[in-house]
């Protein structure tokens, strides 16, 4: 019997497909940034479910660091698009 967290891992792998489609096809730069942001969130949720599945707390640290990096990256790209400079 497959548990619900295993099912959520499979579901998250399938949720990559729309993000990759939008990264490849998206007509403008903000489209691609949005798709990459959604992809990072999916990876974070996957790491959380995998960490509970394996009973190891270290994957959750990876998820926290990835969340911080994703937020800083999105803010940096939006500043660059808006004003033309990063800082």
């Amino acid at each position, binding site marked *: 019997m497959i548990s619900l967290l295993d099912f959520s891992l499979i579901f998250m792998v399938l949720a990559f497909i729309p993000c990759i489609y939008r990264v490849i096809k998206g007509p403008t730069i903000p489209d691609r940034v*949005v*798709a990459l*942001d959604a992809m990072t969130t999916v990876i974070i949720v996957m790491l959380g479910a995998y960490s509970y599945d394996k009973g190891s707390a270290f994957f959750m640290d990876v998820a*926290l660091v990835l969340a911080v990096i994703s937020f800083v990256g999105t803010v940096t790209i939006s500043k660059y698009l808006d004003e033309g400079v990063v800082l």
Partner: protein
Amino acid sequence: MSEVSISSMIMNLLSDIVLLIGLTFVFLGMLGLIRLPDVYNRLHTTAKIGTVGAFGVMLSILMRAGFTPIGVKAIAVGLFLLLTAPIAAHMITRAAHRHGVGLCKESIIDEYGKTYKGSKK
């Protein structure tokens, strides 16, 4: 059946319900990412993946694991995403509008464009 096993059974059931709510929101967000016509409409759905979807899954992990290191770190990640995903979505929307990405042709009003162009003069 003793008291402890009943309470843990109820907690497992609640955790499953919250996990299903989170997965439903992730599914709806991915559907919107494919189907919607515009950058702003797509941002509207993908912000839901960051807030409700990820926070639901992390809350479900906290309910299953209790206040162990895994559960506390999971709810920390969930709260961080709940705080920062709307800020990131707002900033990228504002940057896209100022960068000149147009709205889709079905949209009928553009309040921010009017005020932005009015303030630039």
